[in-house]
């Protein structure tokens, strides 16, 4: 008798952050909404940053974010870890410290054993513990497809908020995790990824951006975001558009999974990557010698991707050394902020 374990990634349509609603569509729902005004709302919907920030007092603000998605890996515990790391990441990207979290669950109770949900939540809890975050509650609905994530609240000093904007000429851009998890998740779904690679990518996605955030706190960081569903260039475009600056990226310096390049060439690319390119491609100029699969990876939707940090030029190398010393081995300087061309990304 064969004992078949349930493969979570096979039970859903979209995988991880690749399941995110296409960016252009979301804008149609949100633009022009009559939003309540409050002077203490420091970062709200209209700024479209990683998380919202609300000032409580002169030296304390709340940073709030929510993230949930369908599974991109087959193992329930790992899925819980990845979803939690991904949700917590937005607080780190703002320079905040996460404190409390609530589970958000959609569960297909008719077709899946409830023990799977327990294992997912245990995975999430393991990451909350690592982050020093307490679980204060949650909400579960029955749904045909499994989804899990967290609503996270953290602390931040109102004068030390790291937004996506405020790039300065000469800043170096540092990325802390390799690209390609969206394509690899597609390959996992297609059963082409072997266990060793699946394990390696699972570990990377489950890794908190906490250490990277703690380290960058000691440096002159002007802007930061985390790389998730809109892909590297999609999130970079959010930093660059209307910034009054341009960015030059050296494609060969961007950390990428080699297997993802191979699968991109084979056409195992999630629809989200094409959506990201059609939404933000107009802001990007590729040099003719940047291979198509490299371009694909730069638009690949990432699940629980790394931080993209704009740091003062003179401190960039030291920051990379400090990140590597803490085990963030693939951290690399991938580009720089330039005066021209304004509001554009040049990939060479």
């Amino acid at each position, binding site marked *: *008798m064969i004992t*078949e374990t*349930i493969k979570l990634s096979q039970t859903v349509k979209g995988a991880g952050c690749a399941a995110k609603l296409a960016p252009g569509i979301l804008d149609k729902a949100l633009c022009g909404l009559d939003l309540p005004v409050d002077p203490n709302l420091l970062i709200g919907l209209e700024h479209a940053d990683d998380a919202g920030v609300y000032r409580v007092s002169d030296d304390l603000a709340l940073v709030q974010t929510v993230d949930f998605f369908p599974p991109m890996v087959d193992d329930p515990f790992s899925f819980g870890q990845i979803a939690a790391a991904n949700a917590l990441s937005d607080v780190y990207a703002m320079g905040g410290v996460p404190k409390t979290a609530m589970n958000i669950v959609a569960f297909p109770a*008719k077709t899946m*054993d409830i023990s799977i949900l327990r294992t997912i939540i245990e995975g999430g809890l393991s990451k909350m513990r690592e982050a020093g975050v307490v679980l204060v509650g949650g909400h579960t609905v029955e749904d045909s497809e499994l989804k899990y994530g967290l609503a996270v609240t953290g602390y931040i000093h109102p004068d030390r908020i790291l937004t996506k904007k405020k790039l300065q000429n000469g800043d170096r851009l540092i990325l802390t995790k390799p690209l390609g998890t969206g394509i690899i998740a597609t390959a996992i779904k297609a059963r082409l990824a072997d266990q060793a690679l699946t394990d390696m990518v699972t570990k990377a996605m489950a890794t908190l951006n906490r250490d990277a955030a703690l380290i960058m706190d000691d440096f002159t960081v002007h802007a930061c975001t985390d790389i998730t569903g809109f892909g590297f260039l999609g999130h970079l475009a959010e930093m660059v558009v209307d910034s009054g600056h341009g960015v030059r990226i050296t494609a060969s310096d961007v950390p990428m999974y080699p297997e993802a390049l191979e699968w991109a060439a*084979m*056409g*195992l690319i999630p629809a989200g*990557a094409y959506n990201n390119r059609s939404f933000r491609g107009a802001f990007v100029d590729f040099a003719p010698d940047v291979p198509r699969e490299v371009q694909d990876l730069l638009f690949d939707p990432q699940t629980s991707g790394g931080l993209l940090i704009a740091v003062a030029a003179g401190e960039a190398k030291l920051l990379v050394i400090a990140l590597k010393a803490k085990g963030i081995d693939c951290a690399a300087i991938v580009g720089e902020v330039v005066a021209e061309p304004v509001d554009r990304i040049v990939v060479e």
Partner: protein
Amino acid sequence: MTNELDCRGLECPAPVLHVRDALAKEASNDISVLVDNEAARQNVSRFLEHQSYQVQSDGEGELFRVVGRRGVGTQVTATASPPPVAEQSVAGSKKIMVLITGVYLGHGDDALGDMLMFNFIKTLKEMGPDLWRVVFVNSGVSFTSEGSEAVPFLQELAGNGVQIVACGACLAYFHILDKMQVGEVTNMLEIVTGMQQADSVVTI
């Protein structure tokens, strides 16, 4: 002859996998693939280019046709094709017989077992050419009959040359002998001798 594939209604990575499987079965020099979304159009185009096809695609909105062609003049050697397809297109070196004895996969929760069994049947094709024969006995015979969601997947297997057989006595016992929609009726002698002929028998 052009190999025509309809991959409408499929989300990535399914269209690419369909094209891959079709080419593994028959390495035609002309292939035409229908898809209904932009990501599938681009992914299938990339895949065919990767397989040394000259690719053209047209269409808009929700219907695209991707046409791949590789001629005698283009270099198509065994070493030029990428490993994933090459490995899977090797002719079946083993004869695997799968014996399905019920409607649930495993014990514990029947709703879960029901879903797992359906997924198992759907996934059987991943054995590739090694899968030789699938035998249904006892309540398992219902999968070959009218009303079972497994029928199209079994038909696909049968189309790929896999023998689908169901125990005649069992079909009769459940009064569904006339409802059979895929495969052939078999008897115990054939089931037993089949176990001898097979290199391995997987019993579910």
